[in-house]
């Protein structure tokens, strides 16, 4: 048996309608990928459906939020010795057939963390509502400034990591609304970041977890977290490939 290589981490909360399709799609990319669904205490059949479709299921005892759920997957990847991890959403908005595309910069040794971005290519088809587009852009600017590297999409949940990235995120990952802050933490820890244009689909089932009051909390919390993270000192990682 060869050592485990690539794991796909799929956080899911009440995604019974979509999770089976997501697991199938990832497995159809390659039979070598272990699909790990982190079930964040769903009240529906998410966990058993994922299991029936051949995924490894990590069941959290109660809802810990998206960041805590994703980090559970990174910890699993660390413990099991995986060299590569991709993370995609359980609602089907990320197209699993683009997994090889977002892994490519890692395979050629150019990056430790690859973000599947909707805005690398100015002709991309993703046109979010104005408020969300502005939010995404402002956070991208802020992270670019504080991390000293241009980042186009800090809110994407479609990412790929090498071993150095897995090691970082297994111990260092924000627990709520994690993506923006995690990008900055990765840059400040010395991970090499690449961005790849991806298209995302509309949700196939379920509802987005973002409501108006939560967006307010989101903005304030993430801004504070970015500000504080830029005051912290992060140990520079010694990547295996450097």
């Amino acid at each position: 048996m060869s050592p485990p290589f690539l794991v796909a981490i799929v956080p899911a909360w009440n995604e019974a309608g979509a999770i089976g399709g997501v697991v199938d799609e990832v497995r159809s990319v390659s039979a070598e990928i272990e699909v790990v669904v982190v079930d964040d205490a769903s009240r529906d059949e998410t966990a058993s459906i994922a299991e029936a479709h051949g995924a490894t299921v990590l069941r959290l005892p109660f809802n810990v939020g998206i960041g805590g759920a994703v980090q559970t997957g990174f910890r699993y990847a660390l413990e099991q010795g995986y060299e590569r991890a991709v993370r995609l959403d359980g609602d089907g908005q990320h197209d699993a057939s683009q997994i090889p595309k977002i892994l490519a910069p890692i395979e050629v040794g150019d990056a430790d963390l690859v973000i599947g971005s909707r805005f690398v290519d100015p002709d991309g088809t993703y046109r979010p509502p104005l408020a969300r587009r502005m939010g995404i852009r402002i956070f991208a600017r802020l992270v670019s400034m504080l991390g000293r590297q241009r980042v186009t999409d800090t809110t994407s949940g479609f990412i790929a990591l090498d071993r150095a990235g897995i090691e970082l995120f297994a111990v260092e990952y924000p627990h709520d609304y994690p993506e923006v802050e995690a990008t900055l933490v990765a840059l400040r820890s010395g991970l090499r970041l690449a961005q790849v244009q991806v298209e995302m689909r509309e949700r196939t089932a379920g509802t987005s977890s973002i409501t108006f009051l939560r967006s307010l909390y989101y903005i304030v919390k993430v801004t504070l977290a970015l500000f504080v993270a830029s005051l912290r000192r992060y140990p520079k990682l010694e990547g295996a490939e450097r």
Partner: protein
Amino acid sequence: MTPLRVSIVGVAASLLLILVVLELVRGRRLKERYALLWLATGAVLLVLSAWRGGLNTVAGWLGVTGYPPAVLFAVATLFVLLVLLHYSTVISKLTDENVELAQRVALLEERVGRSQLSDRQRAPG
């Protein structure tokens, strides 16, 4: 009108609160989620201390005619109550989650013990 010295002490105290909270977050001893209410407390007290005319106006609305800085105390007390109430809800949630974790560990230990026992029975010696 508020005595100048009260305003200065108020500004200093609220700035100190904000700085201490930020330092606690930076040192990872306080999560952002639980820092927000403290920062709001500091910000409101800072504004009311520094903007003396504003404090007078608010005191007027509330019918506090004799001593406007009393409003500072009232607002500070209100925020402390809010923080405490918030923490009470947080503790309640933590209590439930802690019980759930203990129960899960007990069930897991029982399951692990049983599978070790059956392994031993299958492969004696």
